[in-house]
């Protein structure tokens, strides 16, 4: 038994949170091992320790029989470990060649030898059947290609073990298939792969062995040939998973949102939303399905008044033109917005829950009169919402930073629904949230619908869109390319549409 890498009894805590509890695993040469688990199960923490980004509190990691602790990434790289990160670790303004040689630069005397770097890039790229211009800047490449550059970067260091952290999160189904093929061919040539994901299908398609993590602990180790999706799902969440949201059929009424001919630019001034039209009626949930980066973020920000609109109109509730309105006015009209990034936009970490629960309602007559805040009402509001939305906290005075991800998201959802919006824009409403909270949030959104609100749901999880939405729109390159009822929708066909197919 000569394992390439062996992890024994590893534990790691961040403050009070135990991210890893006494984990053990091994990987053999040429083997593809999947680390499966929900968000927050401790997968990333585990591999970051293998790659030397953080050091374990307890336990050992043995690489090729050598149990010396892995000091830092350069130590890991030297010992044959490479990693492709979930958030690409590429410098956007630098070229492909510069990025690939960073940290391991060829030099001629004192000068950086970029010609050697270019040759190196071409050489490795051809190995995995890829063609890329070594002089193009990373920021000018599509996301899928950027990821391939990440893999090239790892391979340029002669790796025995390649760690892939959620590599398919931003990929189209086609790109995902190509990636899985690359993984198989790497494994055939002897490279071991550790592959992090929470997507069951991919695991079963490519992995030899699977470790399932739950709440920082090892929930099980299985061979891919001995298991199936249902069994893995149960291991992951520790109980039978409810795959469908219980809801009665929608009863759409009058139109609450009408977008026509909308065009919006992204941060780099490129067209992100391109002449897009859609509508949402009261009492229905409209889901927008699509691969991330196809204009969803810009669409949501445009509706919420956070991004300038180039052309087109947005009409709310049949009469209010909000095309040029600011977030304040839009919210005042009764449009709620669960932002995609709750930490960045949705919350102020150091504020109390009470303040966060009125973050965008602070000046409403209920909470302030003549510019003076009404703390009695603010605190009562907080206590009421904490109770109603089951937010786990010590008190309404605790800071938002002290909450778990799921509870933070509940704060945002509670705030947006507490204003009883006629239209709710929900962007990635359950990202990074535990299963219990997901169910709760889904039920709240459905309840809002049943009480007459229109909901525009934008999610990168096709399963979420299909189970929650009544009507599904597929977005591709900033345009709606298809519309269908979610009831009986064909997910394979949607997958094709999401990637520009027909």
């Amino acid at each position, binding site marked *: 038994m000569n394992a390439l890498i062996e992890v024994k009894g590893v534990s790691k805590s961040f403050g009070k949170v135990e991210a890893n509890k006494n984990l053990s695993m091994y990987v053999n040469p040429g083997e593809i091992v999947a680390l499966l688990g929900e968000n927050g199960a401790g997968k990333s923490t585990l591999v970051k320790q293998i790659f030397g980004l953080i050091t374990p509190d307890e336990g050992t990691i043995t690489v090729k029989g050598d149990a010396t602790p892995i000091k830092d990434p350069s130590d890991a790289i030297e010992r044959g470990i490479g990693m492709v990160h979930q958030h690409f670790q590429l410098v956007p303004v630098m070229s492909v060649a510069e990025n690939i040689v960073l940290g391991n630069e060829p030099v001629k005397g004192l000068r950086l030898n970029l010609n050697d770097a270019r040759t190196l890039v071409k050489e490795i790229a051809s190995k995995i059947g890829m063609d890329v211009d070594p002089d193009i800047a990373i920021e000018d490449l599509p996301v899928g290609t950027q990821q391939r550059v990440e893999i090239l970067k790892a391979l340029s260091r002669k790796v025995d073990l390649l760690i892939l952290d959620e590599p398919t999160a931003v990929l189209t189904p086609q790109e995902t298939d190509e990636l899985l093929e690359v993984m198989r061919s790497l494994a055939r040539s002897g490279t071991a792969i550790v592959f992090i994901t929470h997507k069951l299908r991919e695991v079963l398609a490519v992995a030899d062995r699977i470790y399932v993590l739950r709440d920082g602990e090892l929930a099980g180790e299985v061979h891919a040939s001995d298991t199936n999706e249902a069994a893995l799902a149960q291991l992951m969440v520790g109980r039978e998973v409810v795959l469908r949201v219980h809801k009665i059929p929608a009863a759409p009424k009058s139109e609450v949102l009408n977008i026509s001919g909308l065009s919006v630019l992204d941060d780099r001034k490129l067209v992100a939303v391109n002449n897009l039209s859609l509508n949402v009626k009261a009492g229905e949930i409209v889901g927008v399905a699509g691969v991330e980066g196809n204009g969803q973020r810009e669409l949501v920000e445009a509706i*919420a*008044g*956070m991004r300038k609109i180039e052309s087109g109109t947005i009409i709310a509730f049949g009469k209010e033109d909000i095309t040029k309105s*600011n*977030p*304040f*006015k*839009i*919210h*005042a009209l009764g449009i709620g*917005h669960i*932002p995609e990034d709750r930490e*960045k*936009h*949705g*919350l*102020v*970490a*150091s*504020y109390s829950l009470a*303040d966060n629960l009125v*973050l*965008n309602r*602070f*000046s409403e007559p209920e909470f*302030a009169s003549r*510019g*003076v*805040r009404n*703390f009695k009402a603010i605190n009562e509001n907080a206590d009421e919402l904490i109770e109603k939305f089951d937010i786990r906290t010590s008190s309404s005075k605790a800071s938002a930073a002290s909450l778990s991800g799921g509870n933070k998201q509940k704060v945002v959802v509670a705030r947006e629904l507490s204003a009883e919006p006629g239209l709710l824009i929900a962007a990635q409403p359950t990202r990074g949230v535990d299963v219990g909270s997901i169910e709760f949030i889904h039920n709240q959104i459905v309840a809002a619908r049943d009480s007459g609100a229109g909901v525009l749901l934008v999610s990168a999880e096709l399963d979420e869109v299909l189970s929650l939405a009544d009507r599904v729109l597929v977005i591709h390159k900033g345009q709606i390319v298809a519309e269908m009822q979610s009831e009986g929708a064909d997910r394979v066909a949607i997958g094709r549409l999401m990637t520009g197919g027909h």
Partner: protein
Amino acid sequence: MSEQIQTRSPLGRIWDIAVRYQAIVVPVVALTLAFTIGGVLIALQGVNPLIAYESLFRAALFSGDGLLRTLQKATPLILTGMAVSIALRLGLFNIGAQGQLIFGALASAYFGYSLAGAPTIVILPTAIAAGILAGAMWASIAGLLKAYRGVHEVISTIMLNSIAYGLIEFLISGPLQEPDQVLLRTPAVADNARLGNIGSVPVAFIGAVLLAFLVAWMLNRTTTGFQFNTVGKNKFAALYSGMKISRLTVLAMVFSGGLAGLGGAIETLGIVHRYESGFNVGLGFDGITIALLARANPLATIPAALLVAMLRAGSATLQFDTGIKPEVVDLLLAITLLLVSIPVLANILFRDRAQKQENVTSGWGS
């Protein structure tokens, strides 16, 4: 840490209190340390530091009009301290309180002498309002540049300080100069435009203290204050919540400049009684020290300003008694500032129970 909670020894309990109030404990420890280091430096100059400190504080508090002078000096310092604090709440570091203050001082001097003969009820409010307005207008340039052109306020306010000095020097050496006078100064303000004292307490000092309570109330209890704090803590959340960041930025600078300008007006109307080149020096910069000592809390600027004022008021006597240069105060304040602003002191004292200092200022080029 868990042991301390379990045992609850008296010492442990005192320690818990210290940890809880570390926002006060850390500056006090820093001050003590700074005075110790300062004492060593004074000793190196061949003077007994105890005698030096005794002379400094006696002069500042117990000598003839010592207390009055200390409170007079403290008044504009409370205002400039608040000026820097209020901007800091929004993540703006207003280094330009000095420039705003001298504009305020000149404006109030101008109305103080040019309206001579007008009744007190007209001349005094006009002169004070002119000071506030002038400071606010000067600061608003930096606010506008930040909000609409993305120019970092640290650089713009420094430049505006230099420009203010140049412009004012031009004005008091020409258009606004006292006739038949070689000194760079304006005519004296009318008698009824001067701010007096009640016993040893200047009227303006009482006003400044009341204003500190008003500003604290504004920051903690009003929607405007809530918006300032939100922009300072999370600009993106502020944008999401519909707050108008650009307008708030300008508003914060206007408030900040207004406070600094008021400080200048009070200095003119209460002490100097005219604008004269070379007076007012350093009041704005001491405001930075005070704001950082007070951790941008308007009420805490009062004790911080009193401390700085004591040092400044006593420093002349110190030189007379011991020969130590008055600039020793700059040195002492610099060491104090260093110790309160470096996070390490809190970390050494409280280890893992130290409060984390947030990055308060806004980033570069945004």
